[in-house]
């Protein structure tokens, strides 16, 4: 372990080792992050801090060192996106409709992290029901980007990204339906991976679009992400959409030489909409890979333009269905002025949901109606297959695909000029990955002229996270971008 390094600059492995060999106590580590959370409350990254519970668990870890056996991250803190149900505290999905909602079970992801010995610091802000790319759709206020408080951290896992970027937590969980891990990771200069659909259980992760939702870790490095995947992945009998495929040790081949790996560069991702700074930074990263011995190969994903309309039909259709349960009857927000069943539904849903959520419920309801289902839903399913096939074909030629994660760096907060559809369009580089059920990683590759982080996306074939982890790790060994975090949060 590096001497005199502040606690929050340690990797997960380092923290775990320090706690195990008693260089640091879990209470020391936990208290350190809790202090930082309080000090930087103005980021609004946390919806709820579980201070007492976290310290109690940390103390227990310190008192029971013999329990650390088989617990790879014994006594190491984590924070969970508020989309994951936790018995402790509240689970709101950043929606008024679930205001003060207490889940009576832990999500599988939460359970697995606890089994690994991790301590939950609290619940992180997000776009309501994970719908959004600025985190401004939270019912509990927007989150600031630590690099510049006038900018958003991205979304929907904005709280997670902001917290890890400011080193308020060494790792945070996120969820990604169309880019909700990768885009905020890119906007805040951190590492985020969305594994293959089916790798991580969705049980207890509040559903947005069930066929696309996938949890993943948001960390400061690829090696931490790999370690977290070891903990989070695996078949879950509570979620029959999880894959019954063996989970490899993702940390094992991280240091393998990338010489000879073929990286595909799809021309379609470097077109007009891409901010110049981002393009240059990503091109520089491509050069780095060449220097490291990877083979760079131009490829085509000709049907990329279908991705946005396809995604913005399928995701809202499933969302409209998944969110039907928030009706004010069984739990959650119920409007008090309701005078009939119908008005109970109407008022509770009108006031319980935010604007973006309602917009997507309307789109989804319309697109799945009997009259329009053939024109929209069925067509979208066909387009999804076409996009998936494009990727399938590409992976016969290349080991991974490299793209920018986003078309630009972080948006300004309160940008009144930004229409919903222009925001939807900004998801162009991330959504196709969800449609094709692929794993993808975003890592920082530099800064733009406003000193905002730029991210690069690495995509690999289904259930082949190892390749992009290996590539990402090789890049992080060769560069320093991932170690950088805003001056304001140092010390």
């Amino acid at each position, binding site marked *: 372990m590096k001497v005199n390094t502040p606690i929050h600059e340690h990797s997960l492995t380092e923290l775990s080792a320090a706690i195990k060999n008693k260089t640091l106590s879990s209470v020391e580590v936990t208290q350190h992050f809790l202090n930082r959370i309080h000090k930087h409350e103005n980021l609004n990254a946390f919806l709820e801090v579980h201070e007492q519970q976290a310290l109690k668990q940390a103390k227990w870890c310190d008192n029971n060192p013999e329990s650390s056996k088989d617990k790879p991250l014994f006594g190491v803190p984590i924070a969970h996106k508020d989309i*994951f*149900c936790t018995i402790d505290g509240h*689970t709101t*999905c950043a929606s008024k409709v*679930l205001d003060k*909602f207490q*889940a*009576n*079970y832990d*999500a599988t992801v939460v359970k697995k992290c606890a089994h690994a010995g991790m301590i939950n610091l609290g619940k992180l802000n997000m776009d309501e029901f994970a719908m959004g790319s600025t985190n401004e759709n939270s019912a509990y206020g927007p989150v600031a980007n630590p690099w510049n408080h006038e900018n958003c951290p991205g979304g929907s896992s904005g709280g997670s990204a902001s917290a890890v970027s400011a080193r308020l937590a060494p790792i945070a969980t996120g969820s990604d339906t169309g880019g909700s891990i990768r885009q905020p990771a890119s906007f805040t200069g951190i590492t985020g991976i969305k594994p293959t659909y089916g790798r991580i259980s*969705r*049980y*207890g*992760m*509040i*559903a947005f*679009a*069930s*066929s696309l939702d996938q949890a993943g870790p948001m960390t400061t490095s690829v090696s931490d992400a790999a370690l977290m995947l070891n903990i989070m992945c695996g078949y879950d*009998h*509570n*979620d*029959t*959409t999880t894959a019954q495929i063996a989970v490899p040790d993702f940390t094992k081949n991280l240091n393998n030489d990338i010489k000879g790996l073929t990286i595909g560069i799809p021309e379609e991702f470097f077109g007009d909409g891409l901010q110049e700074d981002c393009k240059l930074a990503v091109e520089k990263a491509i050069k780095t890979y060449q220097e490291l011995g990877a083979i760079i190969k131009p490829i085509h994903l000709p049907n990329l333009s279908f991705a946005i309309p396809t995604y913005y039909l399928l995701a809202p*259709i*499933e969302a*409209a*269905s998944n*969110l*039907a*349960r928030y*009706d004010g*009857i*069984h*739990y959650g927000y119920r409007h008090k002025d309701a005078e009939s*069943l119908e008005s109970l*539904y109407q008022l509770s849903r009108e006031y319980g949901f935010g604007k973006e959520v309602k917009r997507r419920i309307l789109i989804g*309801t319309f697109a*799945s*109606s*009997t*009259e329009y*289902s053939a024109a929209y*839903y069925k067509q979208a399913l066909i387009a999804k297959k076409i996009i998936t096939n494009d990727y399938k074909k590409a992976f016969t030629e290349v080991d991974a695909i490299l793209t920018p994660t986003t078309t630009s760096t972080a948006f300004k907060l309160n940008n009144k000029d930004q229409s919903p559809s222009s925001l939807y369009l900004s998801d162009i580089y991330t959504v196709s990955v969800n449609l094709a059920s692929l794993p993808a990683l975003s890592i920082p590759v530099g800064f733009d002229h406003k000193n905002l982080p730029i991210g690069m996306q690495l995509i690999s074939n289904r259930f082949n996270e190892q390749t992009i982890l290996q590539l990402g790790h090789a890049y992080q060994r060769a560069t320093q971008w991932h170690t950088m975090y805003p001056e304001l949060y140092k010390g």
Partner: protein
Amino acid sequence: MALDSQNIFLNIGLEIHIQLSTKTKAFSSAPVQYGNQANQNIRIVDVAIPGTLPIVNKEMMKQAIMFGKCVDAQVNQKITFARKHYFYPDLPKGYQITQDENPILVGGSINYELNGKTKQCMLHHAHLEEDAGKSLHGYKKGTSGIDLNRAGQPLLEIVTEPCLESIDDAIAFLKQLHSLVTYLGICDGNMQEGSFRCDVNISVKPSKDAPLGNRVEIKNMNSFKFIQRALQYEIERQVEQINDGQKVHQETRLYNEKKQSTESMRSKENANDYRYFSEPDIPTIWIDEQFIADAISRLPEIPEDRVARYEAAGMQPTDARIIAYQRPMADFADQLIDYGHEIKTIANWILGPISALANKAQIDFASLPISSNDIHDILTKLVNGALSSKMAKEVLEHIWNEQKSVDEIIEKYGLKQLDSEEEIAKIIQDILEKNPNQLAAYRSGKDKLFGYFVGQAMKATQGQANPGKLNKILKEMLSG
């Protein structure tokens, strides 16, 4: 020419929801049990707590396959589930998990008996789905309660072709289906508790070859009587409308038990848009041969096979069908067959005196107070002449009431048939000697006096004389 309800043609199609007899719910581990305290049988999945996911109950699939095998339906190798959306307080998810594009069973048919003829009803398909909960209105003043015990219980919805041509056909078919599913043990058949419910589609047309009329659906009926009355009312209503020059509107109606009439629930224009789409939480399920074989291995002898077996053994077809489809009754019959009794006698006894007693006591053959061994003893004595058929029935009644053995009952009530020709002749001799005038009158041609002598003989033997032998000997001795 005006139509009347006698000279029109009907197309009736049925959608029957049967609650499958699984231990746990369709998509959760909550127990399935009727009559428990409200909201006792629920898990977080049943309340649609955020983040919960459905897990398909394999047993429900097996029971559906058992049914499918018995009706010659095709078991789909690939099955998928779908979501059917509507808002209702007893539907916590806001959608029902059901099957749309790839139901578990396709096609098949069921034979039923009507007026001594065997008829066939074609099945369109059968699919699995979950039941909704129940709204309890006015359980507290001004409020409604929700009981989710039933929410998520597995249902098999059996959909027929619109091939039933009369109310009698519909009822006969339903009764046959009811017997079948209870026979298989995949449904308890309790209609009052809603285990067997029916939606009816009906359309009328003026001639057999006319195209199908607009159909009206009558929803959710749980008694044969209601179904019959609802259909009766609906036919008359539709005929009246046609005669008034109106069109029958495609709509959904509800049967009002109190008014014995149907009432409009919603028209086609106002029909719910259920926005079916495939359930993303449940991956496609591939049913393999082994799974089907496992389900089939649990099947008892298929009722249709039993019918065939009884008929081949000489049972009347109508009797065979009635007995074969009631499993405890058929099991009882099989035991008597194993004892080696004559098939027609078995049918007569089961459908005659034993059924009469069972009906009177309102119990079924699974819980008779007598055993097949008792009936075996009675029939044996009947055949060898130790009991007359009248006495045999008497013995049965006594055993039924007192649960004693046949011999004990015969002993107790002295129900021994006088079978010895010698003894009978002796008694007749005695009677003839005591009634010289009547004997003379008979012999001079008054044949009617024969009955008088039979009466005297029966009286003398306390009704225990073998009637056949008595008649024969009496005739011989009277003629001198």
